[in-house]
């Protein structure tokens, strides 16, 4: 049987080595050209938010500003289907404010006319999730040059880089004709936006994104007095922070619970370790008293014993 198995193993290995050499041969005879999307794609710029790290909590004032940016800018195209108006209480709005935000929301909620049973719409209630800006995917694509604006509820968890990616993407639009990458290389023609409906953005995976730059000028959103000036960077940071909250509203509770659990387990393992040492104390010694040893091992045993402070 060992010969059969050895033969099978050798066959698999041989086929793998054939694959290996044919792979290398193709690579050297026909070296692949570097893709523009690899050469020009950039990693997200670092972004620091109050929710970062194991002790991170949300900055409610920032979340409210971010919500304002979503409400006034993003929500024109992007839905937020997993979040309810009532959830806004967690970022510091009171019941009356939430009721007003819901009933004033620019899109109404589909409903049924109670008299005729026909399709109708009604004002949103705090218990509703944010109504989507488009009735369905076809309507969304029709209004956006056949591109589909994704739902934003989980966006910071659904993209590599999370909030930093959102911030970099919103602030990262560039002119493909003048843009240079880190090596000073200009964008080749095939990587430039193929139509005016696409926009060059080195933070987007394939470099050309259907979304036009959403935040174009400082003061596009008016922040209440006492808040930082609404520069493009500030608004992008605030909306990224808001989207961390929409993706993970329980983040602060998770961190708080985590710290308690870690402290508990730390104490439990330390106490457990000493209990273990206590229980094994006798057993570890008792075994060291048996028959005669040859000289070399006797010396070794003596060294070990003296190290542990046992006489003899």
């Amino acid at each position, binding site marked *: 049987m060992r010969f059969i198995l050895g033969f099978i193993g050798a066959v698999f290995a041989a086929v793998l080595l054939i694959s290996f050499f044919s792979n290398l041969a193709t*690579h050297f005879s026909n070296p692949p050209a570097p893709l523009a999307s690899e050469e020009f794609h950039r990693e997200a710029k670092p972004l620091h938010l109050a929710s970062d790290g194991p002790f991170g909590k949300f900055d409610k004032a920032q979340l409210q500003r971010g919500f304002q940016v979503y409400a006034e800018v993003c929500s024109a195209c992007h839905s937020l289907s997993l979040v309810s108006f009532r959830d806004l209480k967690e970022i510091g709005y009171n019941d009356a404010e939430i009721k007003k935000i819901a009933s004033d929301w620019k899109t109404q909620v589909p409903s049924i006319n109670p008299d005729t049973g026909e399709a109708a719409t009604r004002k949103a209630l705090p218990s509703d999730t944010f109504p989507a800006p488009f009735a369905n995917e076809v309507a969304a694509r029709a209004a956006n040059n056949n591109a589909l604006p994704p739902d934003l509820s989980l966006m910071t968890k659904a993209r590599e880089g999370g909030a930093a990616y959102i911030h970099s993407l919103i602030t990262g639009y560039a002119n493909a004709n003048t843009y240079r990458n880190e090596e000073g290389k200009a964008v080749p023609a095939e990587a430039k936006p193929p139509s005016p409906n696409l926009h060059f953005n080195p933070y987007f995976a394939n470099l050309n994104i259907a979304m036009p730059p959403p935040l174009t000028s400082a003061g596009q959103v008016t922040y209440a007095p006492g808040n930082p000036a609404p520069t493009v960077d500030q608004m992008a940071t605030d909306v990224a922070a808001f989207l961390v909250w929409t993706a993970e509203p329980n983040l602060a509770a998770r961190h708080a619970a985590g710290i308690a659990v870690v402290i508990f387990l730390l104490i439990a393992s330390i106490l457990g*370790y000493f209990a273990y040492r206590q229980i094994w104390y006798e057993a570890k010694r008792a075994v060291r008293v048996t028959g005669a040893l040859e000289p070399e091992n006797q010396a070794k045993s003596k060294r070990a014993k003296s190290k542990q402070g046992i006489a003899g």
Partner: protein
Amino acid sequence: MSFSWAKAYEPKSSFMRWLDDRLPLPRLVYGAIGGGYPVPRNLNYFWNFGVLAGIFLTIQIVSGIVLAMHYFATTGGAFNSVNQLIMRDVNAGWLLRYAHMNGASFFFIVTYIHIFRGLYYGSYKAPRELVWMLGLVIYLLMMATAFMGYVLPWGQMSYWGAQVITGFFSAFPLIGEPLRVWLLGGYAPDQAALTRFFSLHYLLPFVIAAVVILHIWALHIPGSSNPTGVDVKSEKDTLPFHPFYTAKDGWFAAAVLLAYALVTYFAPDYLGHPDNYIPANPLATPAHIVPEWYFWPFYAILRSFTVDFILPAKLWGVLAMFGSILLLFFLPWVDKSPVRSGAYRPVFKRFFWLLVVDVIILGYVGGAEINAFNVALGQAAAAYYFLHFLVILPLVSAFETPLPLPNSISESVLHGEAAESAPAGSNKSARNTVVAG
């Protein structure tokens, strides 16, 4: 059970005596994980991982049952039931979900350490062949369960993972495509597949638990192996499981749970893939379809076959991927060396560490993007994997001269070598050398 000096259960109260006379459950527990199970006294910390795997199985079953109370197994409802209902509205639902997600990863981490422990110390050798094989059955069931569980949130990676993995079956000639359609209940993953995956995902953990009982039962016939690989010879060589190993397992379990808590509470999505937070879309293929990290080594083997040599490359890949696990069932008969422990096998030991590096490389390649370098690396590593088990191991076991073994477990401890670890190669001068087997 296993040794004549194993202590018999003595009820301490009249109630326990009453119970023990009618249903000897206390006796069973005492003999299995209590003072009645003698264990070699020289076990090192690598022997803690079996108990840890049991702990993570329990965590998975408990968190999974509660999650199932809130989950909708429909293609339209699954994603939102996880990401809206469970993550936002169910009390501590986020904790259940993250604990279950990362519990699966930790279950695999401890199981992999447990398996490599067995490989190094020859735990698969006689008389423990069935312990090893039942363990492999558990591992296969774990893989099936984890795969189906990953499909349930019905995100992009769930959907495309299901598409790719069930696609393996279509590699087989003639029966392949009908088999795939039969397994999925359709031409592509859809409602039928999701419902049956949910049903099986709920069933298989209990099958695992049943095989775990067989695994432990088979283990308790010869008793646990130990770092020297030398058989237990006298009472001096053993300690009762309780309190000695319950204490050792206890504190170490708390320490491992600490690591688990750190990931679950502070980096819950670190081991996952962002694409699974995008709802499944049969019309949009993700740029890189990768399975969960614990399947990466096998995924690398699958993808390493790139040439149609007699058979199509895809069929080679699928055969090799299944073969890479099935070959482990033959290990007790492939490795004929009478010495169990790798600590006394100088040549075997070098190849063992090469295998560890090899599997880590395969894991890296399986998760990495496809380029000429990664593919070549994966091909070389996959070739070594098969050569290691099927060619090198039998040759090593035939030609290697092992180091002399200690007379007994208590002697190896007595010699004052590191109290908790195998006395690696330091017994050259022990006078009476015995080769086990």
